[in-house]
């Protein structure tokens, strides 16, 4: 800890500057003192009524420096008084703020420090390792969602599955957790062999069990058939073991057939009909990660373009392809759900690595099919199971957001697209979710920059190595406190035990303004409407309570009245 403090100190040449002016969207301009710490940029006016700015360096996606010389012109010569530097800070949550800093040198120092501090590569220097909660942790989020618990629930419904420890030292599949659920009849040796036939060792495992008809969603990575059409009996046996006698299943490959064909040249591929006769393959067209990132950059650019032409707006929105990505992902998830619920057929989902589009599809399908996933707790469990445990590399995907000028490595808004799809379903079924839009926006923010350790690291193995559960606080420990949770609850929620089928028509899919236009548009009127709605519902509940208590009182009175008459 001490050495790291030293490291930060070296990076901060000017720890504080007075007279800095801060401009933020929808908030009054603030003048105050700017302080840099190892993890935060703080601006405080030291007045009670103005809000301070506490910005995590990790939230900073890019900065721009501008210099303005201040002087006056007293011809024939210009008299130079001083200089004012401006830093535009572009955040990963898509907010853009501006800092006016007096003094050229201070400005440059601040800019350099921010740049260095916001791009630290070492995970162990991240804020979650330094953050000490100001609240008492009542329910530790790290212990909330264990695979054992989930399996107990599964066991109560069926005995066809078992929990395998085959990956206990992460040697079979580095991106899988220790415990995975597999068909009962498949032994660990077969699993090891199947793992060698799948990209990154991600052999088929259980993702979701549909209680209504016993159908399942499995997920994996692409099979390594290569150009020679290699096959693996254990893999075939493994996935066939998930089918009931006489039943058939669907393999949903999230890539187009062309992309899947090309993958053969690099050793990948797809399941050949001949070797998997009980399975029907369907190809969809969910884009690869780098294309998704481009899409994000373009849509954010379109939303931040303040020129007022309607034509340009619609063209840019279209050209970003963001809405098309949402449509394709949602459609694929609906298809998977349809296979399960309507066709009564089990489904295996995979793309290439099985850590991105695969997870979008399996997790969204569960939201459609499983009412429990639409509660706050259920959704957290889903994120744990299908994203964190399943090895979505959050650390890599969320390293940069839409503004970064750095060369892209493996950044991609895979999880944001998932949240966008959830939001679309929420918009179409506004009464069926226990959480509201704020909950989804909050998750988006915390995947990119957070004081909590939940989204650090790339795999379960790495999280164990980093000792996250001991050294950092879980996001869920904070979210599930009643005082926080209140903000995220949907007042219209009424548990809906049905499968919900969203519309995927372009007319039905909207731009997620809560994320993309959040900093461009005041939400005052919409917030008022929301408040009004909350008020109406609360008043209704209050009346219900009153009526019920009076009814009880009356009933008591009546029985008292009746007593003397009964012999």
């Amino acid at each position, binding site marked *: 800890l001490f050495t790291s403090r030293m490291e930060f100190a070296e990076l901060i040449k000017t720890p504080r500057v007075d007279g800095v002016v801060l401009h933020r969207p929808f908030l009054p301009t603030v003048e105050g003192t700017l302080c840099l710490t190892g993890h935060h940029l703080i601006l405080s006016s030291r007045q009670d009524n103005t809000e301070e700015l506490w910005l995590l360096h990790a939230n900073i996606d890019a900065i721009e420096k501008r210099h303005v010389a201040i002087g006056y012109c007293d011809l024939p010569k210009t008299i130079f008084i001083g200089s004012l530097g401006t830093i535009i800070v572009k955040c990963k949550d898509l907010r853009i703020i501006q800092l006016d800093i007096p003094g050229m040198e201070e400005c440059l120092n601040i800019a350099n420090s921010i740049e260095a501090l916001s791009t630290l590569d070492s995970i162990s220097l991240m804020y979650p390792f330094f953050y000490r909660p100001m609240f008492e942790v009542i329910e530790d989020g790290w212990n909330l969602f264990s695979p054992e618990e989930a399996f107990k629930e599964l066991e109560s419904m069926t005995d066809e599955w078992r929990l395998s420890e085959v990956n206990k030292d992460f040697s079979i599949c580095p991106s899988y957790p220790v415990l995975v659920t597999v068909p009962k009849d498949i032994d660990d040796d077969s699993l090891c062999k199947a793992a060698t036939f799948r990209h990154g060792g991600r052999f088929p495992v259980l993702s979701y069990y549909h209680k209504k008809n016993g159908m399942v969603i499995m997920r994996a990575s692409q099979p390594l058939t290569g150009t020679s059409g290699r096959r693996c009996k254990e893999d075939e046996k493994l996935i066939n073991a998930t089918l009931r006698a006489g039943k058939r299943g669907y393999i949903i490959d999230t890539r187009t057939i062309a992309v899947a064909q090309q993958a053969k040249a690099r050793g990948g591929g797809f399941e050949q009909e001949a070797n998997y006769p009980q399975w029907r393959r369907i190809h969809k067209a969910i884009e690869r990660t780098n294309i998704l990132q481009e899409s994000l950059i373009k849509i954010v650019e379109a939303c931040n373009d303040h020129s007022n032409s309607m034509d340009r707006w619609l063209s840019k929105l279209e050209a970003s392809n963001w809405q098309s990505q949402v449509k394709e992902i949602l459609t694929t998830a609906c298809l998977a759900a349809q296979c399960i619920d309507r066709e009564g057929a089990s489904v295996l989902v995979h793309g290439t690595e099985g850590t991105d589009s695969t997870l979008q599809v399996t997790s969204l399908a569960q939201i459609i099919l499983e009412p429990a996933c639409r509660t706050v707790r259920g959704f957290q469990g889903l994120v744990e199971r299908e994203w964190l445990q399943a090895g979505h590399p959050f650390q890599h995907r969320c390293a940069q957001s839409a503004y970064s000028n750095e060369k892209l490595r493996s950044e991609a808004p895979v999880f944001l697209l998932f949240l966008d799809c959830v939001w679309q379903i929420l918009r179409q079924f506004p009464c069926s979710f226990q959480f509201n839009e704020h909950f989804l926006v909050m998750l988006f923010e915390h995947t990119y920059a957070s004081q909590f350790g939940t989204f650090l690291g790339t795999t379960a193995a790495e999280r164990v190595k980093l000792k996250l559960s001991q050294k950092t606080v879980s996001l869920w420990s904070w979210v599930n406190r009643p005082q926080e949770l209140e903000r995220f609850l949907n007042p219209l929620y009424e548990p809906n035990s049905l499968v919900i089928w969203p519309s995927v028509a372009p007319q039905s899919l909207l731009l997620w303004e809560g994320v993309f236009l959040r900093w461009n548009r005041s939400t005052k009127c919409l917030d008022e409407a929301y408040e009004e709605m909350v008020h109406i519902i609360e008043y209704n509940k209050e009346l219900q309570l*009153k009526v019920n208590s009076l009814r009880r009182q009356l009933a008591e009175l009546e029985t008292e009245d009746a007593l003397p008459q009964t012999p």
Partner: protein
Amino acid sequence: MLQVERVQLADRSSSRRAQVGTLYLTAFHTIFVDNEVHNELWVLHSLVCNVEKLSITSCGYPLLIRCKNFQVIQLLIPKENDCNDVFVSLLRLSRTERYEELYCFSFMPNVDKAARGQAWDFLNLKAEYNRMGVSNKLWHTTSVNREYRVCDTYPADLYVPKSASLPVIVGSSRFRSKGRFPTLSYYYRETQAVICRSSQPLSGFSARCLEDEQMLEAIMKSNPGSRFMYVVDTRPKLNAMANRATGKGYENEDNYTNIKFQFIGIENIHVMRNSQQKLIEVSDLPSPSMGEFLLGLETSDWLKHIKSILAAGTFIAKAVAEEGVSVLVHCSDGWDRTTQVCSLASVLLDPFYRTLKGLMVSSVCYEYTREIVHKLYQLLNVLIEKDWVSFGHKFSHRYGHVVEEPKEASPVIDQFLECVWQLMEQFPCAFEYNERFLISIYNHVHSCHYGNFICNSEKERKDLGFWRGLYNHFDRGLHPRQSVLDSLMAIKEETQQLEEVLTIYQQKLAGVGREQANDLFVKKHGMKNSQGLWAEPTQIRLANSPQDYNGGNLVSGPKDLLPQQRKTNLDLSLFGDTSESSDPDNSDQESEGADFSCHSCSGGASPPSEDSVKDPDSDDPAFNNA
């Protein structure tokens, strides 16, 4: 009356269900009655836009009926003769040649005479101008247009500046196209600034008219707080310049004292008509990709036009409210664009036209009976009456009520209503009425249901939305499956009942009239189940079943297919040989529009038009476009 048996009604949005029933053609409606459940579909002939015979199929003769409210009905008639009869009759019935044949002249709404009289009394413009608080010192009614002597498209009573003498008014009217001289449209009490309207001046390249100049000066001076006024020409500059060649044109700033002249380029009715046509084609695409949809939306230019109208309304409202400067608005004849823009500015300026704050869920919304709706109409009607009907907006021409004149038809009021909808999206709490109300106004404009329509943002936003509620009104699969509005209305209703029950209980506890209270309680609870005339029984079942997510490759729940269709679909099935893949009665039935709990019981897609109320088929939005 024409009656045809064994007609099939196809649901365009899903392949799985075709109802068989009887088709009736009455003097005013096409009625389809389902044989099995006896659901009824009613369509007013005056709503029919066109009728098309499609190519013959093995099961009969298909007929496609497109309505002005974007409903599309596809019928399959077994016999060719019958099909022809229906076709010819519909063509004849949907083209009314005389006003007397229009439905509104024979429609007897369930409103008593007094209420109807009241509706017409609302035409009393004087009362409306009094409500605005027009200053009697500065403005007065003029009798110049009694018996429509000066301008036959203006009302008889008009407000003009008190300082404008009769010769000035008459002189000015001679210098204005169709005699439509500048007259008061809206008076803004707080600043005393006004919105006036007129037609274009007959200025040509150099003509001027002293009386017209005096008229504008009189208007400017009637606003003591300002030293100048705006003259807003809502046309694109090029159009206005072209008009000069025909002896019309726009005001020359040099000839008028203290005017600021401004063009706001709203396109003419022909451009608008074509734009809407393109928009309708986009909303009609069978299963568009995101790109097709967005590009189609863009090429239609519709939102650009909506934005220009909003921008004009905003400009005027700002001038009047913030700068305190009066505005004269005109376009060519001053009855389309001018009308839109004046109305919109009024909606922006005056909460009366939005009526009651916190209105998203006002008490009127849930008592959605015809009487209440009628009263609601009166509210917006005041505005529509004031700006549209009395100032000669050509309703019959624009909306094709009597004998088609395609070149004259244009979506002027559609655009106005859409502008109001766009504002509603931005300011959900500012309006007493909701989207459904706008759509029912729309339907009434296009169906001549009520007599009124017959006879002749505050800030710049780029991301105006597509009005799915109107253009895809009948494609229920596209709408949210649960509606926040419906839930809130149900909660509000329940709250009201709870309040009543609470009072009863409190009275009971106080020992007052126990029996009476009990009766009342039962009565109130009985009411909960009764539905107003405007509530649709179909809403109770929630639209919820899967769409075609895989281009028709999956056969999902072809439960109610006719035998022939079922066969073809099975061939497309992935595992045609196994029986379980399309099991017709698996346990999913519960999710087929099963009742969500009480608050959300009414589905979001709710056609407000009376004519479609009886449509039974709301539980199946699946639209397999295969």
